[in-house]
């Protein structure tokens, strides 16, 4: 049985509709469990009809979940504890974004501007030095220093510019990692079967 089997999909849709009291994540996991159950039942040699009959009507199965997950007092306590934690997680992300946004703007703009202009001008000074040393400079370039000075200064400026660009890369990676650490993670991780 594939996921696209119309009878299975109809059953899972009905189940999902009746699970409206659960959170979206819980609903998705329940549907995954039942979908997998039906596939495994059929793979084990049962007919789809028998497997569905054994599960019972979708609305009754949904009610069994609702009873187990919502009427249980511990679950209510858990939900009360979990709700503010979701809010606080949002505040944490928002707070981090606010704290980081203005410095990030300044740092990114500065590093980018310094990086690009120093790299380009370093290249230009180096080229001008070379031309001055080997031949005639075009009339629109004025140079008051000996060519050797420009040839040496060019690479220094370029190195400073490239360093600024590398620093920009590091900073972006750092901010990305900080944001990701605060954001919620996926909970289903691949792992070993034995515990």
């Amino acid at each position, binding site marked *: 049985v594939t996921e696209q089997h119309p009878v299975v999909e109809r059953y899972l849709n009905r189940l999902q509709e009746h699970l409206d009291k659960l959170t979206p994540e819980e609903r998705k996991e329940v549907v995954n469990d039942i979908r997998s*159950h039906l596939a495994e039942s059929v793979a084990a040699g049962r007919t789809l009809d028998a497997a569905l009959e054994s599960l019972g009507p979708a609305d009754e*199965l949904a009610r069994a979940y609702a009873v187990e997950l919502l009427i249980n007092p511990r679950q209510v306590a858990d939900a009360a504890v979990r709700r503010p934690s979701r809010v606080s997680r949002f505040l944490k992300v928002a707070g981090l974004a606010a704290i980081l946004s203005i410095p990030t703007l300044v740092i990114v703009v500065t590093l980018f501007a310094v990086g690009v202009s120093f790299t380009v001008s370093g290249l230009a000074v180096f080229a001008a030095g070379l031309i001055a040393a080997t031949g005639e400079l075009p009339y629109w370039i004025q140079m008051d220093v000996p060519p050797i000075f420009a040839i040496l200064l060019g690479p220094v400026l370029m190195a400073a510019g490239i360093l600024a660009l590398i620093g920009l890369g590091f900073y972006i990676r750092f901010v990305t990692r900080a944001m990701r650490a605060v954001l919620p993670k996926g909970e289903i991780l691949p792992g070993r079967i034995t515990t």
Partner: protein
Amino acid sequence: VSPSAPGEWTSQLRRGILELCILLVLRRNASYGYEIVTTFGGQGPLAAGENTVYPLLRRLKTEGFLETFAKDSPAGPPRQYYRLTSVGRRRLAVLEREWAEMVAAVDRYMDKGDAS
């Protein structure tokens, strides 16, 4: 209520015990829904249908006693494996002790009843 049909009493009793048994089944190895459900299929006082076991698995997960991870299945959609968390292991130890004490206590009443 017929005295020969324990129905409601048994089902009340079974709910709690089933929770202990699911934790026991998962003590050594992680297992997926279908495999767990078939463990409790068949006849006998602990027989429980899918519509009991699956919701219970889900509750044990929301309570933090079990966690899930996905694994490919030859049957089609990926299997959701359930395994004990460390909190679940502590919970299992508590339930085992409670169960032993409960059985011992009931046994004492049964002995008293026999003696009189």
